[in-house]
């Protein structure tokens, strides 16, 4: 039961209108299962999964599944701050949920400041479209919006598992890239990124940090 080793922990938050499928997306991503019926999320729920980025670094994702319902809005916004990535989720078959995306994004930016999270635009319920459902948001339109705002865009289906992995993987990889370039770093008092204390090379992060002081003795 003891947790596997990981190098970093990223905190990602899922936001978007209610019933667009945030919880289902997460359930598939963490459990590989799809629930036909699920209760609306109260406040916020938590999921976790370990993922490996391209160079083999192990990342533990702590996923904050916020309630989309309007009545929780005042509460959920207080959870934004410590996120390093945000998935903006809409329902492909629900025009309004897509039209609210700019609002969600502005809200997230405002509350995560001064940190700048990685955003991704995730369309849900792709299976409904191929199943004769009515698509209300075209792929091109969503893609155009994503390009305009510099977001990664993907259409997913939690029922079939289409692109679910990709959605999270791309955000994780991008956060990791930004760590590599020095844009993001682990900070005291901010929980967006944390280092796993079980580094495979046997070096404790604290020790690494303290080293220059010791070696610089003259």
């Amino acid at each position, binding site marked *: *039961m*003891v*947790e596997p*080793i990981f190098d970093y922990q990223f905190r990602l938050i899922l936001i978007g209108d209610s019933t667009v499928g945030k919880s289902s997306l997460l359930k598939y991503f963490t459990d590989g299962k799809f629930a036909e019926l699920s209760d609306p999320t*109260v*406040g*916020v729920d*938590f*999921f*976790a999964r370990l993922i490996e980025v391209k160079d083999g670094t192990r990342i533990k994702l*702590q996923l*904050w599944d916020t309630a989309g319902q309007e*009545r*929780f809005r*005042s*509460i959920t916004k*207080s*959870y934004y701050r410590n996120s390093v990535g945000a998935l903006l989720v809409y329902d492909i078959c629900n025009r309004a949920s897509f039209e609210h995306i700019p609002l969600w994004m502005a809200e997230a930016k405002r509350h995560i400041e*001064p940190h*700048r999270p*990685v*955003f991704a635009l995730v369309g849900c319920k792709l299976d409904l479209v191929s199943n004769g459902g009515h698509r209300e948001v075209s792929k091109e339109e969503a893609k155009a919006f*994503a*390009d305009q*705002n*510099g*977001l*990664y*865009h993907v259409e997913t289906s939690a029922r079939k598992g289409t692109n679910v992995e990709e959605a999270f*993987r*791309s955000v994780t*990889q*991008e956060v990791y*890239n930004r760590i590599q*370039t*020095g*844009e993001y*770093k682990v*900070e*005291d*008092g901010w*929980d967006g990124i944390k280092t*796993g*204390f*079980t580094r495979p090379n*046997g070096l*404790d992060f*604290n*020790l690494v*940090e*303290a080293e*220059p*002081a010791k070696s*610089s*003795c*003259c």
Partner: protein
Amino acid sequence: MDTSDSEHFESADEEFNSDTEDKNVKTKTISDTSETLKLKEMTISEESINVSNVKEVSTVNVVSNDNSCHDLKRKNVKPVVRNPTADKSDKRSKPGKLKLGVKLGTKITSTSCNAIKCDDVEDSKLKSNYDNKTSSSSKTNIDDNHKTCISALKDIKNEENLQKLDKREEIVLDEESNMWADDEWEPISSTDNKLTNKETNETNKTVQNNFSSGWGGWGNWDVTSLLSTATMGVTTITNHVSQGLTTVLESGIGVPDPEELARLNKMEGKSKESIEVDEEEEEKKEVDSKNNKSGVPDLTFGLGSFVSGVSQITKLVESTGNKVISSGLDTLETIGKKTMEVLQEGDPGLKKKRAFLKIDADKPVLSHILREAKEKAEQENRLAEEKHVSKKANYETLFDDHQGLAHLEALEMLSRQCDIKLKTLLESHSGADLIEMQETLSQIKELCELTDEDEDEKEELDESEIKEKIETAVTELNVSISYNKLMSTWKDISHWLENLDLNLYSAAQLHEESINILAQLTAVAVELFHKTGELLLIKEHRSTVDEADSLVQLTTTMTTLISDIAKKASNKLNEKATQSGSKDNVNQFITNVYFEATNSSSYIKNAFELLIPVLQVGAV
């Protein structure tokens, strides 16, 4: 991720860059690797040439004293090349330095003439003064540095200069944002730029842009503070070292390693020199005009005039001056390092000190403590793993696995938010209103006092009784929440414990499972409290007394469940002990189970206490 993906994100970067704040840039800069630092050193030198160009234009009328100019021309190439940072810097940057020397020779003529006004004798005085100060300060105890930290801060508050700094920063910032907007340059890909910036002027400019934004903060700060110190004469170097440290600590950007710091100090030293030398001239006007013309930050001016300043030193002064500079900078480096060492003593990474400066740590945050404990345990586990010893069951890790830690943390956020709301409310009230409100708040607190009663209740728990108790409490809460999860988890656990086949588990495994179920039940309890808090906050009509009552009921019920599970688990462990006969070992396990059960109860009580502000907010 494929290339198109990264393109998306890159464009996002650009957008963000355009509205980057100065702070962000600073932070970024501090974290830069030493390689980029070296690159920047090079850039500084090259920038100084540009400044010399400007000078050439602005001081043509002075270029009459030809003889001395040519005389100096030859000598003045040296100091720059022998610049201590250059000597120590990466080999790759050396060709650049040499080129620089050659270039410098051609540019120097006019600038040296400009500087010739300055009195040589006075100059050497300044130098020796500087020398004395540095050598004495090198002997000074490092503890003195701490003291000078404070005095240095006072020294620096020369208001006039500060105002000027503000204006200049504004100008620089404006330019920056424009540059960032249509700039493809990414601050981190410095290695590429390193190569190109030697080749073309254009890229050189780009790097300068980066420089001005990244180091502008330091540069501006430097020059202003240096101007003030210069007018007061040569103040001690230690001031600057400690100022450097203070800024680092104050801005909370994390601590640069001593080497970086030493480098910064070297730069300070350099610009300081230049200002001392140029002191007598109408430098301020020049600063402004140059800045406007060249758009290069103040530090550049400092270095540019450093070149010109040094260039007018006579042969004799030059050789001693060089010694002074290099030894002075070495001393600076030493002081910087030493100070960092002392600061970091018993406080690696300055974590404690930073925390001390930043937050009022009047009460520790539970989730942080738990997380720390978890991290520590994980580390121990890893070590144990390496030694091929079986892993130990760790409560905190398991608690996190069941998402207990996350819920606790989120509950803390809610609680804190309510606290803030209450504080602002209290501040807005006065007189009788204030007293009334304070009374209401303390009444609620009293309602929430937990009594340590049924702790040693011995009889077997009645399931239906418990269920009824919970249900009544939840009804009183009047929010749409079900505590079924608590009941079902407890039932599952009890059921599992009762029907446990002792032959299938070793004592250690049984112990681990016991810890796990305790963590699981606690996590469920914390989760429910968290959800309750959220729902209470969005509830329309609050009935604080009822809510407090039922939450107290729920808390005691939860702790009863915990002790029930602990009892059952230890009974099983006892059975196992009599079965296998290894009593000592098992006793330790049993103690541990009870210990973690007590922990569980206190976590639940803590979670309940976090709900008190939520209740209070509903009452006022």
